[in-house]
Structures are given as structure tokens and as C-alpha cells.
């Protein structure tokens, strides 16, 4: 392609392929994990959505660091009893949240005005605010990961009906999830086929052209597929009305779990004031 050294740093194709692969792997792992026999997997999705969302809300409202840490510990316990390995939590939630929030929170240690901490150039107020930022991000990310690794995506979306999300929106979200996987695969194939035909490193300008052309082709395929999907929907009798099968059934364990989540979330909100 160009005169650039072939063993230079990884280019667009490799990075994009890795990102696409990671997203697909995450989606597939969620499906596998949701079908395991853990505690949360046995619960009604509506209970999990309501319960875990209320804990996220309690964390957002909390003004005490120990309480956020306690909810994080609870989320870890829930993950353990639901067959989610700690290394998965660490690699997919904790490290990412720590890196992102840590970079943002670190300057607050020095910039927030207040009393010096043990004679260091950081302030107590700065340490507290950085702690709030990082702990809240970690806890919310852990709770959401526990939800999506113990519940099928389609069930999570159906359970959103308890928040009065319109049926048409739930259907659109469901279709989006399904086609994200197809799009990821299509994009993966596009870049892989290009990689197999690339013998040398590409210049930045060539990489930009490739990314733009890839986006354009993917857009064309998206719209073409949309037409086909619509025709298929019409063939099955779709006339504009959308329906959702409400096939969830609340059992004893679900009511018990709902009660436990209600108590925990209420107690967290009360204690975290």
C-alpha cells in the first residue's frame, strides 16, 4: 500500500477488529452467562430491573462513602451467587470504570479547595470528591453488569415496561440489539477481508479513507437490510401495530427478592442521606 514500515504500531484495521470482536464477545458472553443456574438468573427480569435500578438510584443519592462501598460489596456478593466470576467483573467493569473515572477524578485531589490531608498537597475534600466519583462509577457499572450477565437482553428490554416505556420503543430497542450483532459481524467481515488483502502498513490518510468508505458501505447495507426486514415484517402480517408477549410469571422467590430489594434500596436511601 505505502512505504511505511510494516512492523509499525497497530493500525485502524487491527484496532477496529479488536473493538468489534470485544463487543461481540461481550454480547455472546452475556447470553451464555444469563442461562447459567445462579440466584439472580432464577428471578423474574422485572424484579432484577426494578431492584438493581433502585440500588443504582440509591448510590446516586448517597452522600456517604461507606454506604456506596456497602452497595458495591452487595453487588459483588450478588455476582458471586449468580456464577459471575470476579475476574469478569474486574476486567469488564472495575478496570474500565477505574481508568476512566480515575483520570477524571485525580486532578480533583489537588484542585478541590479544603484542608490538607496529612501534610500532602491533596485536600480532604478533594479525596472525598474523588472517592465519590470513582466509587459511584464502579458501583453502578458493577450493578449493571450483574443485571445484563444474569438476564437475557430481550428480557431486560421487556422488563422496561414496568417503567411505562412505550411498547414501540421496547420493540425498536429489541430489534436494535438483534441487529447490532449482525452489524458487528458485517463490519468485522469487511475489515477482516481488507486485512487479508493488506500486505503493508497503511498511511493515516489511507486509514481514514478506509474508515469512511467502510462507514458508507455499512450505511448502504443498513438501509438495504431495513427494507428487507420491513418486507419480511409485512409478509408476516405486520400492519403498524406492535405487540409484546408479557410472559413473565412472578413466583414466591420473586416476591421475596422484590421485598429484599425494596428493603435494601429504601435502607440505602435513608442511610445515605
Amino acid at each position, binding site marked *: 500500500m505505502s512505504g511505511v514500515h510494516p512492523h509499525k504500531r497497530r493500525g485502524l484495521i487491527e484496532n477496529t477488529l479488536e473493538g468489534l470482536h470485544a463487543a461481540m464477545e461481550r454480547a455472546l458472553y452475556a447470553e451464555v452467562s444469563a442461562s447459567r443456574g445462579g440466584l439472580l438468573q432464577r428471578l423474574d427480569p422485572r424484579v432484577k430491573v426494578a431492584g438493581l435500578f433502585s440500588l443504582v438510584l440509591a448510590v446516586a443519592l448517597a452522600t456517604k462513602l461507606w454506604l456506596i462501598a456497602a452497595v458495591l460489596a452487595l453487588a459483588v456478593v450478588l455476582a458471586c451467587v449468580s456464577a459471575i466470576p470476579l475476574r469478569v467483573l474486574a476486567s469488564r467493569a472495575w478496570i474500565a470504570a477505574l481508568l476512566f*473515572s480515575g483520570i477524571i477524578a485525580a486532578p480533583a485531589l489537588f*484542585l478541590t479547595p*479544603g484542608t490538607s490531608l496529612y501534610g500532602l498537597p491533596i485536600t480532604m475534600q478533594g479525596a472525598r470528591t474523588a472517592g465519590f466519583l470513582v466509587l459511584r462509577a464502579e458501583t453502578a457499572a458493577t450493578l449493571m453488569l450483574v443485571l445484563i450477565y444474569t438476564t437475557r437482553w430481550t428480557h431486560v428490554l421487556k422488563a422496561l415496561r414496568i417503567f411505562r416505556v412505550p411498547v414501540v420503543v421496547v420493540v425498536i430497542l429489541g430489534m436494535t440489539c438483534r441487529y447490532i450483532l449482525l452489524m458487528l459481524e458485517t463490519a468485522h467481515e469487511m475489515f477482516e477481508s481488507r486485512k487479508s488483502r493488506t500486505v503493508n502498513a497503511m498511511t493515516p490518510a489511507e486509514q481514514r479513507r478506509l474508515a469512511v*468508505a467502510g462507514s*458508507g458501505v455499512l450505511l448502504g447495507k443498513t438501509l438495504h437490510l431495513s427494507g428487507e426486514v420491513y418486507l419480511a415484517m409485512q409478509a408476516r402480517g405486520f400492519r403498524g401495530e406492535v405487540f409484546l408477549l408479557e410472559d413473565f410469571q412472578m413466583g414466591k422467590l420473586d416476591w421475596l427478592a422484590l421485598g429484599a430489594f425494596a428493603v435494601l434500596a429504601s435502607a440505602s436511601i435513608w442511610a445515605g442521606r
Partner: protein
Amino acid sequence: MHIPDGYLSPATCATLYAGCIPFWRMALGRVKKVMHSRQVPLLSLFAAFSFVIMMFNLPLPGGTTGHATGIGLATVVLGPWAAMLAVSVALVVQALFFGDGGVTAIGANCFNMAIAGSLVAYAVYRLLTGRSALASARRVVAAGLAGYVAINVSALLAAVEFGIQPLLYKDAAGAPLYCPYPLSIAIPAMMIGHLTIAGLAELAVSAGVVAFLQRSDLSLLRSTAGKVAEAAQTLPVGAARPLRALWAGLAALMVLTPLGILAAGSAWGEWMASDYANPAARGQIAAASFNHVAPQSAPLGLQRLSSVWTAPFARYAPPYIRGAAFGYLLSAMFGAGLIVLACLMLGRFTRSAARAGPEAP
């Protein structure tokens, strides 16, 4: 840009959720009215597309990389209301299943990117495209700028939301409970990255894909082009474009040029050699230069070069015209006429060169 959980207070999140609801309702209503049931798979697939192109990292000047969000592109292809829904759906899926953006901040992220972003992108795109043809280069530039402005407006809104947190929410010890940075830090911190890296990525993808669509499937650009572009499209190549409004604006500006006489003094640095000897002009120079007194005489270089060429309309006041206002008007007509003539000649030259075509190898 995707605000995680814990950065905004629940009250801010609730306010932004509430701010989204009327737009979502209006968008759903408009989408149902315009495209009926066909919109359901289109929105889903476009949301999936937006999700996937966020993974295409573009190499940018300076050795860094960035990715587009697809706001500009979605708006150009789907229109602002459908784009608003498609981008919102993509953001909800990202927050729920991929941990990109917080669930409590879904309202904030949708408000900043899907709602404000789409509306701003549409306004910029329509403003810049005007009556241009679907295949014109102007649409490529407009799409790029629409994406660039949209993502920067979204970033600015996010920065303002971050920046007001320490003003509103602190614990008993004075530690900010949510984002700790005030507006003076949040705005530059967010905007520097978006005005450069993220904005450039959005610009490149929006403009590049529109250029790609112009070559591959022009019909995809029709939904946001309106009837005007259809009319422009039917004009034969080289025919005069409907530029009446532009000509009227130019004429109005020329008629208004005598207003320039009302402005006192001369522009800083545009002094003539004779001004240095004129006490009134020297006073103006000093006043405009932080009271630095000008030299008694013009610098030698200025004296020598100022006499090399004497303009026929020096200071927009031809010596043979008595009325200053009429002199201004005549200068404007002469100057504008020269520019139009040069453009026409350039256009004719370009067209004749294009007709001749490239030589065979």
C-alpha cells in the same frame, strides 16, 4: 461525551430526563406521521449502525485517534426527528448493555447528543446547503460542519451540566458530591478535546460518507434536502442557479456602504504616510494604540512604498466625485463588479477546461 453514573446529581438527571420526554413524544409522533410502520426497522437498524461506527477509530493529525458518533450522518440521512430517536436508542443500548454511559445519565446523554445534537446538525446542514443540488460539494462540506458543530454543542451542554454540579451539591465538609470541576475547568477541558479530536472525527465521517453516498446512492440524501434540492437537481449543468436572494442581498449591501462614512477614525494599522504629520490623525493613532505616541514622521519604508501605486479609488473616495456617499457607493459597485467579473471568467474557464476533458494516456 457519554456521561457515566455518578457525575451528575439525581436532580440534574431527572430534569434532563424530563427535558427529553416532549422531544421524544414529538419525534415519535412525527415519525409515525411521515413514515408509518416502515420507520420501525429503519430506526432499529440505524441505531445499530450508529453503535457500530463508533468503533471505527480514525487516525487524526497529531498521532491521535477519534471516533464519530454518527449524529451528523443520522440527521442528514433520516432527518432530525428520526435521527433523534435512532441516536437515543443507540445510547440506551450502549448504557444498558455495554456500560458506555450511565443508566441514571441516559436522559442527559440523550438530551445532549440525540436531541440537541440532531437539531443543531439539521439547522447547520439546511442553512449551509441552501438550494444546492444533491450531488454538490456544498452538501459534503455542510454535512461535515453539521457533524462538527453538533458534537461540539453536545460537548458544551455536557460541560455545563458538569460545571454546575459543584455549585449545587456539596457534603457537610464542603466536598463536591458529583462532578467536582466548576464551569471554568469543565468547559475548556471538554471543549479542547471536542473542538480538535472528536470534532474532526465527526467531520471526517459525516463529510466522507455523504461524499460516498453522492457517488453510490444519491437517493439517500433526498429526505432532508426538501423540494428545493429536487428543483436544483433538474437544472441542466451550467445553468444559472436561483441566486436572486444573493443578488438582492449584494445590492442591499452596496446601497448601505455609505454608512461606512459614519465610522470615526481609520482602522488600526491602516494609516497613510500623511497621517503621521496630521495632528488629528496622530491623536487617533495614539488613542487606538494604548496611548503610544506615533513617530513624528512616517517610517521611511512606508513613505517609499506608499507612493509606488496610487489606487483609482483611494480611501473609497475618487477625487473626481464630490459627494462622499456617492463615492462610497461607486467604489462598492466597482469593487463588487470586478469580483463578479473575475468569478464569471473563472467559471467559464473551468467549464471549457472540463468540456475539453482529460487527454488520453
